[in-house]
Structure formats: structure tokens, C-alpha cells
């Protein structure tokens, strides 16, 4: 099957810093693909690059092709809100505070379909029903709604464009656990009904394992490991993925200090960027950048000999 989204060797630089250093990933139509990693590994920038929405001052190179359209080379507005939409991390700030929810739906719907105000309202009410919200929410301002309700609105807004790809950027992070579950379930149900692909950006490995078909583990702007979600997260081969999983707090673990990964992210130009923090690092790790092989960018996948 041809790819819905194909990102090849994406690099993003902001001044002298290169937060994304050659990420390649694919999303097939209707597939849910997780992009996981800790803060600052380049997850969000990768998502924004797909929309052509990088912050001012950021420069991107590589290839981003979405449903046949070259996003980096062409006009990203050809795909935004038509083929791809984004569900943002902070529902509280992602909506325009001085316009009603209905007004914001109308703005998007009318920009794409040129329909009448009345038709836009009817369509918006339908979309809200799909995310289990009452129609009266259309007349509310964002500050009158809870985070969970706003995230439902955001998902409904995403649906309004009938996209083939939805980028969910930490869509549940700002919500409490039970609401986050509801939002995930909603997203999955709509994904099954509408068949869009999902790029699920998260640092929550448990969520990624639960809903993703495949995952990419990003570290310091590179793909450290990729593969089927269960394979990668149940039998990690890259030491970073192993360390990340070991850092998950567990209720059944013996009491004591929580596990963490020593040190902090380094963006070493030479060698493996994880070498500094890797328990199994050898000399070759510091000298040579490991090539991706069989889905793992590590000199010693599965542990040192």
C-alpha cells in the first residue's frame, strides 16, 4: 500500500541548533503510528513540519510528502485543514478565547467549503454530536468549557476537514487520567469510523502501546528504534527504549527511588547521541554514528556482547 505520509531525512535547524537530525517515518492510510520520546527529542517539531507550521526562524530540509503533495517544497496551505489536521496539547489555549466555539467551527468550515453560516452551524452541531457534546456548546466561549470538553471540540474540529491524517500532539497530556482515557477511546472510535491515519505524538509509552500499530522512538532528533508497537515496547532492542521503559513507575515494583536515565540529552555530532548515557557504550559508540539497521540505530542492539 502506498504511504499516506512519508517523511524522509527531515532536518530542522533553529539557528545553530538542530533539534531534528534526519528523521524518516511513514504512516500508511488508516494506520496509527506513535512517535515517542522524552521532551526535546524533536517529536513536536516533526509533527509541525508535516503541517509546514514550524516556528519562525526554523529551517527544514528533507522531504515531507503527504498524500502526493510535497509539503516542504510546496504550499503547506494546500494540505492544512484538508488532508491533515492537528489536535494540540493544550486545549485551554488552542482555542480563540474571544470567539464562540460555533464561531470557530464556522470560520474553518466556511474557509474550506464556502458554505453558508446556517449550514456551517448545522454541520458543527453534527460534529459535536459525533464527539458526544451537546449542541449548546456551540454558543459557549472556550473559558466556559473544561479541558476534556475542549479537547472533544478540537477533535470535532479536526473531523470537520475530513482529513486523511490527524496529528495528535500530546493530545491527552494536559488532561487528567480518566478524561485522557475517554479522549483516547473517542479518537480510536472515530479513527475506525472514518479511517484516517493518526500520527500519535506522546511521551506516554503505555498509551502508545495501547493504541498504536507501529511506533518510532525518537532520541535527540533521530529515530532510535522503530517497529510494531508491541514488539518495540515489549521487547526493546535499543538501550534507550529499554531505559525509557525501565523509568516507568510501577505499582508492583519494590519501594525505593524511581528509576531514571542518568545524564541529559546530548546532541553530539559524532557518534551515537545516546552513548553518554548508555550503560553498554563502547568506544565505537562514541566514534561512529550507528546506522539504522533492521529498525534499530544501535551498534549493539539487544545488549552488548
Amino acid at each position, binding site marked *: 500500500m502506498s504511504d499516506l505520509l512519508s517523511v524522509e531525512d527531515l532536518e530542522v535547524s533553529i539557528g545553530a541548533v538542530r533539534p531534528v537530525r534526519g528523521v524518516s517515518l511513514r504512516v500508511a492510510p488508516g494506520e496509527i503510528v506513535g512517535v515517542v520520546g522524552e521532551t526535546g527529542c524533536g517529536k513536536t517539531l516533526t509533527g509541525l513540519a508535516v503541517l509546514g*507550521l514550524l516556528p519562525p526562524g526554523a529551517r527544514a530540509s528533507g522531504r515531507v510528502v503527504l498524500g502526493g503533495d510535497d509539503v516542504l517544497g510546496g504550499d503547506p*496551505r494546500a494540505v492544512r485543514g484538508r488532508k491533515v489536521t*492537528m489536535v494540540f496539547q493544550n486545549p485551554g*489555549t488552542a482555542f480563540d478565547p*474571544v470567539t464562540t466555539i460555533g464561531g470557530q467551527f464556522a*470560520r*474553518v468550515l466556511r474557509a474550506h467549503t464556502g458554505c453558508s453560516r446556517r449550514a456551517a452551524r448545522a454541520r458543527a452541531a453534527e460534529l459535536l454530536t459525533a464527539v458526544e457534546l451537546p449542541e449548546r456548546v456551540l454558543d459557549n*466561549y472556550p473559558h466556559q468549557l473544561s479541558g476534556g470538553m475542549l479537547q472533544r471540540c*478540537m477533535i470535532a474540529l479536526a473531523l470537520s*476537514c475530513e482529513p486523511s491524517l490527524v496529528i495528535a500532539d500530546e493530545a491527552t497530556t494536559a488532561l487528567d487520567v480518566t478524561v485522557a482515557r475517554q479522549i483516547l477511546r473517542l479518537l480510536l472510535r472515530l479513527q475506525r469510523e472514518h479511517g484516517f491515519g493518526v500520527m500519535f505524538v506522546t511521551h506516554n509509552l503505555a498509551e502508545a502501546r495501547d493504541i498504536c500499530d507501529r511506533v518510532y522512538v525518537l532520541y535527540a532528533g533521530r529515530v532510535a528504534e522503530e517497529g510494531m508497537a508491541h514488539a518495540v515496547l515489549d521487547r526493546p532492542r535499543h538501550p534507550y527504549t529499554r531505559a525509557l521503559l525501565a523509568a516507568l513507575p510501577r505499582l508492583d515494583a519494590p519501594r525505593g527511588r524511581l528509576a531514571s536515565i542518568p545524564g541529559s540529552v546530548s546532541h553530539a555530532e559524532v557518534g551515537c547521541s545516546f552513548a553518554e548515557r548508555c550503560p553498554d557504550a563502547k568506544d565505537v559508540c562514541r566514534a561512529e554514528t550507528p546506522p539504522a539497521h533492521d529498525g534499530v540505530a544501535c551498534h549493539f542492539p539487544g545488549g552488548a556482547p
Partner: protein
Amino acid sequence: MIRFLMRRAATSALVLLGVMLATFLLARVVPASPAVAYIGPKAQPEDIARVERELGLDQPLHIQFWNYLTDMLTGDWGDSIGTKQPVLGEIGERLPATFELLAVAMAAAVLVGVVLGVVAARRKHTKLDHLIRLLSIGGVSMPAFWLGLLLQVVFVRALGLLPPTGRLGPDTPFTYPITELTGLYTVDALLTGNTAALGDAVLHLILPAATLAAYPAGVVARMTRATMIEMLAQDHVRTARAYGLSERTVTWRVALRGALPPVTTVFGLTLAYSLTGTFFVEVVFNWPGLGQFAAQALLNVDYPAIMGVTVLGAVGYVLVNLVVDVVQARLDPRVGLA
């Protein structure tokens, strides 16, 4: 809304009472005696005593203030010492001219200021942005009387494009007389289909309005630029872009909408400055309005006229800021009318 208006009416009344007390006391503290001003420089002591008795100036201060208050409320604003006519009548005669000038100038200031501010924010750190910032600093820092003279030199003397002073050309009242309905010449000429007079009135408005608009336009432009830069970096503006809205919609509908509340507040504040600005502008452009009347009154130590204009200015200022607060609540649903 009703409760809000009632509470504001009460606080406004307090403000006005304060203004009246202040103007009243100032008139009593300043050494120049109103009686002397009333009679003239050759006043004899017995005349002064008589006039003081007639005007009630021999009464205790609080009785005088009470008389002043009740007279003002019943529409007796005293007689102007300069013209010997009732102050309220003098003010009513000149108010339309000033109102027309102010309204045109303020509308122009908001329009020009907002557009320049938005363009500067969109083109942040380009040559255009620098030019707009220079213009707005110039508008804010140039005194009105000087700017007025400068514009006259350029557009009247050098280019000969615009008429120098007054509300109408010298012949217009005779060749195309305006039927006064509202006292606003442009509106009256428009309503009666008097296009020749309309054109003349508009031409006469341009320079004084531009002079008066320079300061608020500069302030609004600077405020709009700063707020727009902030707004354009907000999450919800990014959302709007992510959902495929055009840059034009994002700028003028989404970001500007959010930038308007603070701009409105600042604009309301500059209005007080513009009210005093009319004093200079009307003198420079020989505009037969309140500002010119007030300037004359100041020079003649015409207490009733000064006090009348001051109270009227205070009423205007209080009303404008009431309107600003209501507009503010309309623009931003998070601001309540409490």
C-alpha cells in the same frame, strides 16, 4: 447590564462632583478676582464690593459651592465674562464644530493606527516596520500646534492643495448655504444633498483632523503592533493556521480580534489628551469650536466659561470611558460588566 450602568452612573456622578469642586476651588484660589475681571481693569473698591454682593461672592464658600451646583444642574451655567452671553448657549453653539472635528479625527486615528500597527507587526523588523514605528513616534511626540503649522506650510502655502483655516471657504455660506440640522456641516450638507458645500467642508476638515489624529494614531499604532506580535505567537493563532485558514483571515479576523481589547483601552485614555488637543488645533486652524472658546476664556480669565468647558470635558471623558468599558466587554467575553 442595567446594574452595571447604574453603578457606573453613581461613580460617574462622584467623579463629576469632584471635578466641579476642583474647578470651583481653583477659581476661588487664583488671586485674580472674578469681580475685577467682570468689571474691568478700572474697577473701584466700592464697585467691586457691589459686584461681589451681586454675584454672591461675599457668601461663605460652601454656600457658594451649593449655589454653583444647583445652578449648574438647572442649566444656569452663568454668563461668560468675555461675551456677556449665557455660557451654556455659547457652548451649545460651538459644540457641533468641535464634535465634528473630534469624531473625524478619532475615526481616522483608529483606522490608520490599527492598520499601520497590524502591518508593522506582520512585517516585524523590516524597513516598512521601522518606517511605521518612526511615523508613530513622530505622531506621538510632535506637539499639535507645531504639527498644525507644519501641515499648513506644506499643504496650503507650498502645495496649495487645501484651504488654510475655518470650517468653510469665505464664499460657501453665500453661494451654497448649509441648512443647519445637526450643526455638523458634513452631515447637514449630506442630508440636504448640498454636494458643493460637502466637498468644501471635507477639505477644511482634513488638516485639523490630521493634526488632532496624529497623537492617538501613533499611540494606537504602537499598541496594536505590540499586541499583534504577541497575538500572532499565541497557540490559538497556530491552531487557526493548522486548520488551513488563510494568512489574511488569521491576521485580520483571528489575531486582530484578540488584540482589540487592549487597543481600545489605550485609545480611550488618549481621548483626554485629544480633548485638550482641540484647544491648540482650533486656535491654529481658526476652527470656531469649543477649544477656541476655551482658549479665549483662559486668556480673559473668564471663570464661568472656563468652568463650563471643564465640566463639559469631564462629562465627555466619563461618557467615553463608559463606552470603552461596554465595548471592552463586548470584545472580550472573559471581561464581565461587574
